[in-house]
């Protein structure tokens, strides 16, 4: 094949952009797996490992600079054991040890620890897992750091907007303020008020925080390099917490009609043994659906993007990027839509459930 014809062709520029994009996109995780592949040269490229490495949590933070080798920043490990608290760096556990090698054992104050997969376990002298030791892992993992970064971004944005409202009171919004005002008004006028009704004002802080927390983390998750590149809103623990907070808010704001509907619906007596358990399951299943929906949507998007990128390494040819990259760009566009959509749906359903709980019946 004549290379000059490629250079001259009109598709060269998009190709170059795609290649650069690819470089920035997948550097953090891919070079890691490449390195691994180099160390175990016979080992074949495993897309599953790559994808789960990204989707899951980890005790290290990948820092990647284009054209440079990748570095991992150690994160603190905080363990609460039955004998007391242990805090040490994840470097001690060799967070980045090659596959196949024995993980290094770190001797702490109370137990010795090593990494079993991604989990920190206590081991005894012989290197066997100590079943008797109770170890709870409260480490600052990659997702915790990501969440904090997302929160810092949120705080910076909304402190700026709030101060703009104070400074420019009585005047037309400007800049960031006018970008976010329609979104805030959308949450208030099209999400909260139609679903909750007159009592909406009490729930506005929660709804806005949920909406922007999910949105900012969805969007940062789409950014392939710092400060993004994580899968926070696609983590079941995070969606669990969000939906649990929603569960508590719904049930604490439920009025007598809400509880009457659950425990004393106006139905024949013989239906009670069926209906009451169904309604009680309904209390749980509503937030549960929220949890699964957000988790599945975001995780699925990340898996598709990473799988498309993995195709290049499965076929072991850069030409595959001409297929993969357009598809990834397409998927990223859809993910952008999904990022907004899921934030909207979560907030929408939350306000709908709150609305059902605070609704006044007149009959």
């Amino acid at each position, binding site marked *: 094949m004549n290379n000059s014809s490629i250079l001259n062709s009109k598709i060269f520029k998009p190709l170059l952009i795609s290649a650069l994009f690819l470089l920035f996109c997948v550097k953090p995780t891919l070079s890691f797996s490449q390195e691994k592949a180099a160390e175990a040269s016979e080992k074949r490229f495993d897309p599953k490992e790559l994808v789960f490495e990204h989707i899951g949590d980890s005790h290290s933070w990948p820092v990647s600079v284009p054209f440079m080798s990748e570095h991992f920043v150690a994160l603190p490990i905080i363990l609460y054991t039955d004998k007391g608290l242990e805090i040490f760096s994840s470097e001690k556990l060799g967070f980045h040890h090659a596959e196949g090698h024995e993980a290094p054992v770190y001797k702490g104050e109370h137990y010795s620890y090593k990494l079993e997969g991604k989990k920190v376990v206590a081991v005894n002298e012989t290197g066997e897992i100590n079943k008797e030791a109770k170890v709870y892992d409260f480490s600052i993992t990659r997702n*915790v750091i990501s*969440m904090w970064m997302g*929160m810092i971004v949120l705080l910076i944005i*909304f*402190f700026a907007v*709030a101060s703009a409202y104070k400074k420019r009171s009585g005047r037309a919004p400007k800049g960031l303020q006018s970008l976010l005002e329609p979104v805030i008004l959308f949450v208030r006028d099209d999400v909260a008020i139609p679903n909750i009704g007159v009592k909406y004002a009490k729930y506005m*802080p929660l709804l806005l*925080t949920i909406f922007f927390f999910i949105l900012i983390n969805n969007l940062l998750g789409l950014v392939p390099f710092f400060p993004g590149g994580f899968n926070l809103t696609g983590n079941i623990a995070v969606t669990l917490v969000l939906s649990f907070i929603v569960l508590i808010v719904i049930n604490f704001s439920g009025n007598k009609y809400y509880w009457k509907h659950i425990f004393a619906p106006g139905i024949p007596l013989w239906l009670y043994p069926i209906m009451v358990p169904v309604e009680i399951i309904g209390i749980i299943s509503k937030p549960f659906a929220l949890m699964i929906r957000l988790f599945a949507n975001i995780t699925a998007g990340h898996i598709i993007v990473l799988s498309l990128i993995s195709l290049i390494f499965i076929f072991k040819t850069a030409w595959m990027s001409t297929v993969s990259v357009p598809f990834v760009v397409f998927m990223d566009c859809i993910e952008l839509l999904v990022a907004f959509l899921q934030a909207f749906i979560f907030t929408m359903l939350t306000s709908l459930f709150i609305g059902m709980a605070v609704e006044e019946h007149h009959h």
Partner: protein
Amino acid sequence: MELVTPDLGLVVWTTLSFLILLFILGKFAWKPILGALNDRERFIEDSLSKAEAAKDEMARLTNENESLLKQARAERDQILSDARKVKEQMIADAKELAHKEGARMIELARVEINNQKSIAMADVKNQVATLSLQIAEKVLRKQFEDHQKQDELVSQLLKEVKL
């Protein structure tokens, strides 16, 4: 399975962080932002209702002005037509008066003329009488200068007397 097993550490950190975020944003961001939005909406609503009121007031004033103008115009027309009538009346009156005065003066003149004429006629009559007498005297004197004629006349007169 690992994917759908929530990690305890992350659950705890997320709960803590989210609640702190909710508190901080609620206190320092959502409260001022929503407050400002509410204030602005109220201000806009106020301004709109004020504008509406001003519009009504304006319309009322315009109506009033128009009716005033109409009234003024009607008054003006009334005054003008009155003035025209008065003018015509005055002209007519003046004409009549002048006519009457003229007639009166003509009458007076006629009476005076008649008076003067009769006086003059009387004068003329007197003059004529005096002249006639003088003439007659002179004629008679001339005729009765000789005695014969006097006698003749006496005799004639005497003849005429029939006793």
